[in-house]
C-alpha cells in the first residue's frame, strides 16, 4: 500500500529503523515523507497507524 505524505507510521520490525546510532523501538511512531514511507512499507519495517 502506498504511503501518504505527512502521515504517522508505526515501527513494526525490531532494529530495522535507526535515528543516527540509536534504533527506534518497535511500537514507536514516526512521521515520514510519502517516498520514505513507501520504501519502508515495502521492506516491512512500518505499518500505518
Amino acid at each position: 500500500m502506498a504511503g501518504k505524505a505527512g502521515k504517522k507510521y508505526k515501527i513494526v520490525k525490531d532494529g530495522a529503523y535507526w535515528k543516527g546510532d540509536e534504533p527506534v523501538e518497535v511500537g514507536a511512531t514516526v512521521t515520514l515523507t510519502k517516498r520514505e514511507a513507501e520504501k519502508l512499507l515495502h521492506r516491512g519495517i512500518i505499518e500505518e497507524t
Partner: protein
Amino acid sequence: MAFTHGSTTSGVYYHTQDLTAYADTWSVDLTGNADEVTTFASAGNSREFIRGINTGGGTVSGYYDAAADQALFDSISDSTVDAFTLIPDAQAIGARTYGGAGLDTSFSPSGSVGGVNAWSLDVQGTGFGGGVLLNIETALTTTGGNASVDSLASSANGGIAVFHFITDDVTTMTCAIQDSPNDSTWANLDEQTFTTVDSVATIVTGTIDQYLRFNVTVFTGTSAVVLASFIRFA
C-alpha cells in the same frame, strides 16, 4: 584521471576465504545481453535488439596453498550460492568493488616441474555487478555504525547486500547494511546474524536511498572480521 596499477588490488574474497595472499590475477566479465527483435517491418535494413538479462562472473588465479586449496576444493562440490568480492584499489569505506552472489563453476589446481604450483577459480554470478565497500577487512570488537557512503543519488531497482564473515571468534554478531535519504535516519536493507564463518549475498528490491552504511547491532565475543559491500542495480 587516477589510473591504478594491478598491484593495488587489496582484496579477493570468495565465500569465507580471503584469497588475497594467494592470488595474483583477477578478471570480471559483465555482459549486457542484447536480444534480437527484428521483424519484416524493421526499418532501414537493420536488425533490431532490446536489452535482455545481464550476466556476470569472475576469474581469480594464483599460487597453490594447501589451506586455500582445501576450502576451494570443498566449495566446488557444494550447491551453495556464495558471496564473491574483488577490490581493485586500496581498501577504504566507499572503495569500488566487483562481485555479488556466485557459484564456482571451475576450480583448477595445476603444476609443472619448472614452476610454482598454481590454481584458478571461475565464478558464475547469480546477481553480480559493481558496488561500494562499506566495511573493510579489519577486526571488529563492538557494536556501532561506520561512516556513510554518499552515492550522490538514490536508485530504484534494488541491489545486492554482500557479507563475508571471515573469522568466527564471536558468539553472535548481527550486522546490517542500511540506507538513508538524509544521512540521518537509517533503514535496514539487509540484516544478518553470524555465529560461525559464512558468506551471504542477498538480492533486495525497490528503492535504495542515496546514503549507505554498515552497522553492527549485536556483538558478543572477542573479535570478528566482516567484509561488507553493496551493489546497486542500474
